[in-house]
């Protein structure tokens, strides 16, 4: 058993700080409301150190208070994620150290899917939510073919540029049309004898790693996955493949 509490300036003082806005005025009633909020959160001795009107009927508060319970660190276990997280810069270093050429990623929103949001988030320069896309990575040559790309055209292009990694985005799906489309791609790749030569990754709002594996993909990435995650997974696989006899 290892018991802990937040640390302010003394062991086990349990001190934390909060800041928030309430739809109140910064008057006596408002300050009391802020205090009650902290009390009902289970905090001890809340001190409203700052209260300020920031808009008609809205006030901003800064509160200090103490936590009255311990956490047992020994009871906290975390499932390790599929791959660890690394930053773009760290990934660029891995690329530089392990490959003497650019890795080629080809991505598309395939089949009837007209949405490019997913594939753009992973591939476009600007990326998504502060996570820059693969186009921005030194050591990666990224081709984003956009939306409604036929599986045949996708494969033809992948062949032409000697793709190492294929990214398939499926954003919107009706009646599981995306599953048929995803399976068809695997079949076509096998017919072309390309399946073994590429890392095949699926992504999209309804894609899970489990589903992707089941359909014959190497990996699947759902919501809250970013370019770093996709890149790191693919690169680790390629490094592992290199060391195979």
């Amino acid at each position, binding site marked *: 058993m290892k018991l802990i509490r937040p640390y302010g300036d003394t062991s086990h003082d349990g001190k934390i700080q909060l*800041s*928030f*806005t309430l739809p109140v005025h910064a008057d006596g009633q408002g300050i009391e409301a802020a205090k009650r909020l902290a009390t009902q959160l289970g905090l001890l001795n809340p001190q409203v150190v700052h209260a300020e009107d*920031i*808009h*008609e009927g*809205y006030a*901003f508060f800064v509160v200090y208070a103490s936590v009255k319970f311990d956490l047992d660190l020994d009871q906290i276990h975390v499932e390790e994620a599929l791959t660890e997280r690394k930053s773009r810069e760290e990934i660029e270093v891995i690329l530089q150290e392990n490959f003497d050429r650019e890795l080629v990623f080809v991505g598309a929103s395939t089949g009837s899917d007209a*949405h*490019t*949001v997913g594939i*753009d988030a992973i591939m*476009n*320069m*600007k990326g*998504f*939510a*502060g996570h*820059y896309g693969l*186009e*921005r990575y030194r050591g990666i040559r990224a081709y*984003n073919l*956009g939306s409604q790309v036929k599986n045949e055209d996708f494969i033809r292009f992948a062949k032409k540029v000697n793709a190492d990694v294929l990214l398939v985005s499926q954003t919107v799906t009706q009646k599981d049309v995306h599953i048929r489309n995803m399976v068809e791609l695997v079949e076509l790749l096998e017919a072309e004898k390309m399946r073994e030569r590429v890392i095949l990754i699926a992504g999209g709002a309804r894609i899970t790693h489990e589903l992707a594996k089941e359909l014959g993909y190497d990996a699947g990435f759902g919501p809250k996955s970013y370019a770093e995650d996709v890149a790191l997974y693919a690169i680790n696989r390629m490094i592992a493949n290199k060391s195979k006899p």
Partner: protein
Amino acid sequence: MNQFHLDPSIIETCRQDAFLIADEVLSMVEQHSTVSVERSVLRLIGVDGVNDLLEPLPNMMVDEVYHHGDLSKGISRYLASALFQSGLNLTEFQQAYLKGQVQLITPHLEDLDTCRNVLKPYLQKTFDRIAKNRDTRHRFLEKETPRTTDLYVIVATGNIHEDVIQAKAAAKAGADIIAVIRSTGQSLLDYVPYGITTEGFGGTYATQANFQIMRKALDEVSKEEGRYIKLVNYASGLCMPEIAAMAAIERLDVLLNDSMYGIIFRDINMKRTFIDQHFSRMINAKAGIIINTGEDNYLTTSDAIEEAHTVLASQFINEQFAFAAGLPEELMGLGHAFEIDPSVENSFLYELAQAQMAREIFPNAPLKYMPPTKHVTGNIFRAYQQNTLFNIVTQYTSQSIHLLGMMTEAIHTPFLQDRYLAIQNAKMIQTSMKSISEELVIKEDGLMANRAKKVLEDASLLLKQVKESTLFQALEQGVFAGVKRPQDGGKGLDGVFQKSPDYWNAALDLWEVSR
């Protein structure tokens, strides 16, 4: 004001080279039009509305001619002829068109004089409205003391009604400019969504109805505050000129409108972008809308120290494209950003040098200065500190449009309190350092002066290079932001077409006459 004593002959050479670079692109632009340019002409004529599938009328009409007629003659002739032959007025015609009772492709096209006469009253009505908008803005602004710096904040709830609440709060707290961020991916839609929208992803759809709602709300606050609150949206992506047309009609004041951003960061075809940006800027010039260029984005991909000269070179190019479209310097919000890694020694001095240099080279432009984003982590306290430094640079160098940095950058769209704290931060700097630029002089021949000199020289070399190879090739080689784009790649190329010798654009035609 002029502290760096930069060599005016180098600056002049940069402008001349940028002129030649833009001129070469413009000779391609002149021979071409795009589906979005044609749709904007329809919007200026007054075509508006959607069918049951929410497909906008401008798209339906341009698509009809694209597929079944000869769009190289321009959409104007088709609409004018169809109106003339149907005997309907525009409103009646649009209703009949939606019901499938009339079409744009008619047995023959009418002669130019007939077409001109048919469309003129409609266009004139829109142009009068745009002129009235300029006048309204002017009347608001002439009543107040001009500000050196406008504080710019963003709202992005996805719901226009919620945006209004946040925008009003920000304006009352001291923001001068409100930008409504667009829903993720709107820039890649080849149409402008229609009507009032209450759902978006990371932003709110830019629609004419939403523009109207926000303008009305900001006018109310402007009156209450005795200060004109400017409204911003984004004329970028595949519908650049259409957004400009709608913004002109609804009295927006500022538009993000870069000549190359779409190419570099959205992979939109370069011909499409150059043609669209030209027409959109002509509309902006007509409407008195300030453009904001997107050089700040370069530094999110490239290193802000190494690539500072690409920002300056691009500013020169954007300036020439803007001149060519008839925009005066007063409407050129050339962009740059505070993006140097703060852990670099003297990074603040380099930022100050870059901002001061931009101010000196473009003295009359309402420079748009963007806050730190690249080196902002989830540590909100550190971000607040970085934003303070950024605010100081603006105060010292008199940046005109100052986009406030948020301590919660890249965490979530700003909370009410985030925006309030950001405004308070800027206000404290504005007050506490009010006369700093009059009191502190930059050392001659010091680190900052030499940095500015070096950036200008590098920009000059780069412009010379681009001039020799053409801007198309420079973009293919990845000169800006390190992104390479092929001339015939990217989105939207199929919407570009060569004008036939009898191409006619009714809006341009009337502008020429009234000029």
